[in-house]
């Protein structure tokens, strides 16, 4: 067999653009997932059982089914309920919902881990619910939820590769496209694996650095 990376690498600009697309979808999807996940966690905590029950079921369904099936349901099933989305839109929405379910569980555990006495003290001092969330719960749980959140960000980087299956023009789709054009799959996929591996290693190192920084600020006695 021949193993020649120069052919693939001659597509430098296209590859950079595709890598930027992967990065953009990941960043946007992660942000939306964190925001939605936090909203779900808060709604479950303060919304009463009529809100908690359905949200819990939703989170369990999303966490219990493969991301690929969710994407197929959204992208191919969507048009039947009036939700016709472009691949990138469907991918971004799918990634956000998928991530949100996991982040919701992380934040739920984080909120529960904040000592009751801290919340009760704040209530005694006349803090409003929003002030308690902003001044007590969020700062205290940040240190606790950081490691699982970093882990989830890394999972989401890898899940972006699955978006290629519904033809989102990110790195996996572009690189396998070039590979199939010249029948150079192995080289293309080899480079792709190296790229994700490097990105994941980088993210986990940054995460550890951040954890070390935040650990110094820990409120937990």
């Amino acid at each position, binding site marked *: 067999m021949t193993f020649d990376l120069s052919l693939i690498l001659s597509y430098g600009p296209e590859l950079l653009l595709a890598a930027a697309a992967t990065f953009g979808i990941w960043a946007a999807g992660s942000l939306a997932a964190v925001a939605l996940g936090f909203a779900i966690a808060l709604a479950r905590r303060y919304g009463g059982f009529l809100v908690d029950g359905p949200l819990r079921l939703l989170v369990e369904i999303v966490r219990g*089914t493969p991301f690929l099936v969710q994407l197929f349901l959204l992208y191919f099933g969507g048009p039947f309920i009036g939700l016709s989305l472009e691949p990138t839109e469907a991918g971004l929405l799918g990634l956000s919902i998928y991530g949100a379910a996991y982040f919701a569980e992380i934040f739920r555990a984080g909120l529960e881990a904040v000592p009751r006495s801290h919340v009760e003290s704040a209530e005694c001092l006349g803090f409003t619910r929003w002030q308690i969330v902003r001044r007590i719960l969020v700062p205290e749980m940040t240190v606790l939820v950081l490691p699982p959140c970093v882990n989830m960000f890394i999972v989401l980087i890898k899940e972006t590769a699955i978006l290629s299956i519904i033809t989102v023009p990110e790195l996996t789709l572009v690189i396998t496209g070039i590979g199939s054009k010249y029948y150079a799959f*192995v080289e293309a*996929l080899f480079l*792709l694996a190296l790229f994700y591996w490097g990105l*994941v290693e980088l993210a986990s190192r940054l995460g550890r650095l951040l954890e070390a920084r935040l650990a110094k600020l820990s409120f937990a006695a």
Partner: protein
Amino acid sequence: MSWKLFEVLVQAAGTTAVISLVSISIGLLIGVGVCAAMMHHHPAVGRLGRVYVSFFRGAPLLVQLLLLYNLLPVIGVNLPSVVTAVIGLSLCTGAYQAENLRGGFASIPVGLVEAAEMVGFSPWQTFIRIKAPIAISLTLPAVVNEAIMILKASSLASVVGMVELTETAKNIAASTFRPLESYAAAGLLYLVLNWIVASGGRLGERLLRAGRT
């Protein structure tokens, strides 16, 4: 969706369950080997184990599966897609299980090992009677978790030509032109499979706990 098509899906769920079970079992063996490599006293062997874990946890499973699927024929190995899918899933889950096992061994209380040495246990006896049972019971929840991850991840085997639950749902969606029902039914079956695995795991943990006292 007709009852007959649902039966086809249930059969496909069986295929998914079988390839997941086989992959998780082979992956456990790989995990034991890689974990042993990581804890090996020779630095080069330890490094090799860590690189294995880092790569297979770092690259997306989809990319690993595609690489394997395209690489094997090029180097002259022609296997049916079921085998390729199982090899790919096993290699990947092996890395996760190695890391879980390493975590289990790392959290064994030092005092217990020292006590065993004090009463004259040989290193092998210490391993078999103290370290291994504790590490296994500490890792069991993680193995159950991993089994659920692999059940879901096995949906990617559809991309390398394996006809399992997701691929079957796709075929039904294409032929009946009803993707909503088809994928929703597939999702439901994944939920049922996961529920079975999770219940089995809870039972196993209870049995292990009962056996310890």
